């Protein structure tokens, strides 16, 4: 990490005192608003709450010991160090005989903590509880966990570590409240850099595949019978359309790391990424995954982070 120590002279009464002062690159120096992290917290909690309500009727099917993938099989696929519902069931066995009550209790606590995270009351504690319970539920239903679970884990970790409750929260005193801190700036930078890694990695993986270079990838994605929301078989007669969509996706993902930082292209590229995820939601029906990605992009690059009246060319 590039940094520099300088030793300015501080005037004392008689003898100058030498004090080391840390000088950081502008990218990390100073403070910024906690609102981007607050936006991440609110978007994430809202999406996870909606997901929880849609999955609640099938709780035992996916997360239960005797669900569609039984616990011994699901447990064998993940490291023993990860928390899971079956550990709690074993722990509480002397007190709770019905293992379904443990799952119901965990899920109830998860939903309750998500509400606290949403409104920002006892935010740090709520974020840690949601993070660990989400991880436990994800581990217990590991074979069914797709992208949304992974990104939720990432975002919940950031909400637990960084001051996501320092703005737009009950903790901060009012809905219009805000605070500026170094931790908020670092949290925002980590989120921004993480998104750059995500898109660059995804773009590189895609462009290595012939399907993405010749347009077949979009054809194959929209024709998956249990994903597709519309009949798009007609695009086979217009192969230029999937070809353009493939290369647009590659351009957005590979260009993200370069074009999200300059002020002139920042909003355009963030909106392009958001548009891409909105398209994924509509065409492939991946609503919760897309919503989390949209929340992460908007929080990282679109929510104002400077003090009122200040201007900056920095993202």
């Amino acid at each position, binding site marked *: 990490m590039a940094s520099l120590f300088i030793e300015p002279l501080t005037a004392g009464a008689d003898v100058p005192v030498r004090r080391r002062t*840390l000088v950081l690159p502008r990218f990390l120096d100073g403070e910024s608003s906690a609102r981007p992290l607050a936006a991440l917290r609110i978007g994430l909690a809202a999406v996870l709450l909606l997901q929880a309500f849609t999955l609640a009727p099938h709780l035992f099917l*996916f997360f239960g010991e005797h669900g569609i993938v039984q616990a011994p099989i699901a447990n064998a696929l993940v490291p023993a160090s990860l928390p899971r519902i079956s550990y709690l069931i074993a722990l509480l066995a002397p007190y709770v005989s019905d293992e379904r009550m443990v799952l119901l209790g965990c899920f109830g606590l998860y939903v309750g903590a998500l509400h606290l995270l949403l409104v920002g009351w006892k935010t740090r504690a709520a974020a840690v509880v949601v993070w660990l319970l989400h991880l436990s539920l994800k581990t217990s239903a590991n074979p069914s966990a797709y992208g949304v679970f992974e990104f939720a884990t*990432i975002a919940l970790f950031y909400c637990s570590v960084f001051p996501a409750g320092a703005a737009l929260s009950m903790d901060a005193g009012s809905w219009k409240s805000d605070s500026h*801190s*170094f931790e908020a700036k670092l949290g925002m930078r980590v989120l921004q850099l993480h998104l750059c890694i995500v898109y660059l990695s995804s773009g590189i993986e895609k462009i290595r595949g*012939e399907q993405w270079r010749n347009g077949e990838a979009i*054809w194959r994605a929209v024709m998956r019978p249990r994903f597709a929301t519309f009949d798009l078989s007609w695009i086979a007669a217009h192969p230029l359309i999937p070809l353009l969509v493939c290369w647009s996706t590659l351009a957005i993902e590979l260009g993200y790391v370069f074009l999200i930082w300059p002020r002139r292209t920042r909003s355009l590229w963030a909106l392009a990424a958001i548009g891409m995820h909105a398209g994924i939601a509509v065409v492939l029906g991946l609503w919760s995954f897309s919503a989390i990605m949209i929340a992460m992009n908007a929080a990282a690059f679109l929510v104002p982070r400077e003090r009122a009246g200040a201007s900056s060319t920095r993202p």
Partner: protein
Amino acid sequence: MRSLGDGRRMAWIAAAGVHLALVICGAAGYTPVSPRHLAGRVIETYREFTGANNGYGFFAPGVASEWRATFDVCSAGMHCLPVAEEQVGREARLLLVTIDGLLGESDLRDLLAASYAARQFARFPHAEVVLVKVEVFALPGMAQYRGGRRPHWRKIYGFAFHRAADGRR
């Protein structure tokens, strides 16, 4: 005026740098320290907890074929009836589709089929046999589709599970 001391700032930045380095390792599919060592196990646990171990190759380098399992439940006389797919909403269906995707992995297929069969035995207590049929969606390319070929579900494997005499599966 700074609210945080320089030492603490440096500690925060160093921690963030290490975390992002692990994120890059995850994206590249690289394990930085072997889990055979204690340090490696600690790092792997950290990566699992924080999501820093994730790869991001969604639908990459190509879009995989879709897999599914269909079921017949049979009586003792082998009168079989097909079982309708679980009636679930869209989000839950995505989870089902994700599980079915594991049928493409040969080392998990048998285990998963057994787990599916157990589910069907629980749903249909009078079933004596559950047939699990594993299918893959065979999708022609765009040019083949224009030439008249159509997608279809192709049967790949079949499993038969019998209820044990004492009621176990």
